[in-house]
């Protein structure tokens, strides 16, 4: 990817919200992510798939107390990509010197 180009996988607002939400956490439950980001199941699934394909997140499915649940976490590649993306954003903002 060119050095001055923003990562398109992260740059979409919903995906940006997902990545920033996951950044301080080890993982988040799908429902928690959906409620906190105020998006629908389908929208969230679509964006998670996109991020998963890029290798930025891990989507683990399982069950708890007989209920189907899924957990999402950022991979180390995803974390690095996010940090680079944040740095890139700061570079784009002109500083008043």
């Amino acid at each position, binding site marked *: 990817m060119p050095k001055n180009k923003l990562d398109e996988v992260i*740059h979409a*607002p919903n995906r*940006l*919200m*997902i990545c*920033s*939400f*996951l*950044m*301080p*956490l*080890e*993982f*988040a*439950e799908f429902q*928690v992510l959906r409620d*906190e*980001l105020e998006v629908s199941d389908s929208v969230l699934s679509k964006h998670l798939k996109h991020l998963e394909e890029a290798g930025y997140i891990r989507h683990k499915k399982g069950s708890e107390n007989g209920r189907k649940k899924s*957990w999402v976490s950022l991979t180390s590649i995803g*974390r690095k990509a*996010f*940090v680079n993306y*944040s740095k890139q*954003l*700061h570079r*784009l*903002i*002109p500083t008043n010197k």
Partner: protein
Amino acid sequence: MHDLRDKDALQAQQALKIIEESKRKAIARKVLPNWFIITNAVLTGLLFISISYLGKYGLPIFILYLIPIFIHYKRSGSWPYFLTPAKDVLAEGVEEIRASPIANAILILVMILTPFIFIASQEMLIDGIYYAPVVSGIILSLIVYAGIAVSRNHYLKKYA
């Protein structure tokens, strides 16, 4: 050229705003709940009483500390922030969480005072004051509660 740069800068600012908002939501989930603080304070008191009064059950109570930590981990998706390695905190130095100086002072005070409280309660126990270790345990619980609560409020005010 200038217009393009202004547009990029505006987009970057909007993106940073989104990052900030989402991160704050996530950080709010890391805040230690009241039940966690109370459980830890009670366990500290019990640990003190069990060691100073009964002279046993120290290890099982010590292991009990893990339960609230794991429950909090499962619910919030993160370890309590005092267990989080500093390098991992908030995305590699975007913002580093610093503990409250008052909470640190209370923690140091607990570590310094505990042996003295222990010795004093043992002496009182020998003198026939049987409730001394219990009272000491309760006092220690209250101090620990205050310490974690101060730390939590500091975290809430500064980062969430």
